[in-house]
């Protein structure tokens, strides 16, 4: 069990929140409760779900349900009866694919592996050489293994029976949406069982529930190096950021990041260093931010047409773009952009 670090903060006259930070599923998480006495129970609820999620959808655990499905051979299709968490995560991934017209596709796992991301990121970086933590324009390039994206429409999910069918050899990559789904689900569970308000931040996918602080939740947009670029106030919105500058490695000397364009099977061109979106849920915010990275230059118009407040940071610097509904950087006096 990893350590849990707790803290408290004063957010108004005689008003305090309690927070906890801990690591799980390979990333760092942050919980805030407006009623400090609920924090211990909130941590337990969050960690229980994350443990189930890891066992269900981790590509890097040979005993996970995703890995077992990918190993099936012989028949034309691979089928499995899956856990409730797997079924719900896959449902979220398929909804993400519908929302984005397939720009975010859970069947890109094989392409992600072909681009070199076939193990925990630390292992990949150790094997392939220095990472590219500083965002650089990433262009598609040749890879040594043929790419294959079966497409999200080839996935069948019977949620009532929890039965999954995919073309044999399909590697599902639910990473783009599973963490966001977990943030939403934990937030709902906390508000349903505990008093007060909650902010659930799972590795940057952020959902809230229950009572809102009087001034809303103050949320920072972090840059690639962890620097605060802007602070905004959310009043019930979820937030997500997709980055081409953080989860990076090299393959045959070329920079790679973890977001694959399912239309090409290649690493998406890094027009944006990162895109931050607000959404009604973390799943929707994450779907929008990931799709924006895939879309590149078309992203601002696509986001605006869907009414999604967003901030887009170009790769290599330059003027930050925002869509309607997102405060201009600097308007709060807290933006470094």
């Amino acid at each position, binding site marked *: 069990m990893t350590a849990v670090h707790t803290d408290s903060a004063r957010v108004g006259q005689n008003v*305090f929140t309690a927070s906890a930070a801990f690591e799980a599923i390979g990333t760092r998480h942050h919980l805030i409760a407006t009623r400090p006495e609920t924090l211990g129970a909130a*941590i337990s609820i969050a960690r229980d779900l994350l443990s189930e999620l890891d066992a269900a959808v981790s590509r890097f655990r040979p005993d996970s349900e995703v890995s077992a499905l990918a190993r099936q051979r012989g028949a034309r299709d691979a089928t499995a009866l899956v856990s409730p968490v797997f079924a719900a995560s896959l449902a979220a991934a398929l909804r993400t694919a519908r929302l984005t017209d397939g720009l975010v596709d859970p069947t890109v796992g094989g392409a992600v592996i072909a681009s070199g991301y076939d193990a925990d990121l630390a292992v990949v970086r150790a094997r392939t050489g220095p990472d590219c933590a500083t965002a650089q324009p990433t262009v598609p390039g040749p890879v040594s293994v043929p790419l294959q994206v079966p497409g999200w429409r080839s996935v069948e999910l019977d949620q009532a029976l929890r039965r999954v069918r995919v073309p044999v050899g399909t590697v599902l990559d639910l990473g783009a949406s599973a963490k966001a789904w977990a943030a939403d689900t934990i937030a709902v569970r906390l508000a349903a069982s505990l008093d*007060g308000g909650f902010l659930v*931040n799972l590795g940057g996918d952020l959902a809230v529930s229950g009572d809102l602080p009087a001034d809303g939740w*103050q949320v920072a947009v972090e840059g690639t190096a962890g620097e605060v670029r802007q602070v905004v106030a959310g009043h019930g*919105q979820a937030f997500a950021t997709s980055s081409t500058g953080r989860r990076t490695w090299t393959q045959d000397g070329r920079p790679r990041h973890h977001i694959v364009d399912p239309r090409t099977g290649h690493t998406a061109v890094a027009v944006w260093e990162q895109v931050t979106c607000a959404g009604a849920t973390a799943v929707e915010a994450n779907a929008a931010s990931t799709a924006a990275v895939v879309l590149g230059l078309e992203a601002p118009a696509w986001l605006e047409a869907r009414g999604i407040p967003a901030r887009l940071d170009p790769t290599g610097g330059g003027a930050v773009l925002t869509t309607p509904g*997102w405060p201009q950087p600097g308007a709060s006096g807290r933006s470094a952009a």
Partner: protein
Amino acid sequence: MSTPRNPLSLARRWTAGALLASTLGAGAVGVHLAQDQGIATAGASASTSGSGAGTSGTSSPGSAAGSSSSDSSGSSFSAVPRVSPATGSAQSSTSGS
């Protein structure tokens, strides 16, 4: 609305805080009193269905305050309220993963 501190309530909360701190191990620095002052409450609880959209002072996934959409499983994005400029220090952060 501010309410006078109740000594019994204070004692109960500190006890709860001490119990919590003792279970969290290293790094725990304890918790503090919380009063409802400054917390907007409307008495509503979160829902999983997206109903309750627009309820002032509460939030839940699928029902961001001011949201008017109930399409939590469909093929279009739900409406999202405008994001406001910050009014205080950051409490948490969103970052790329």
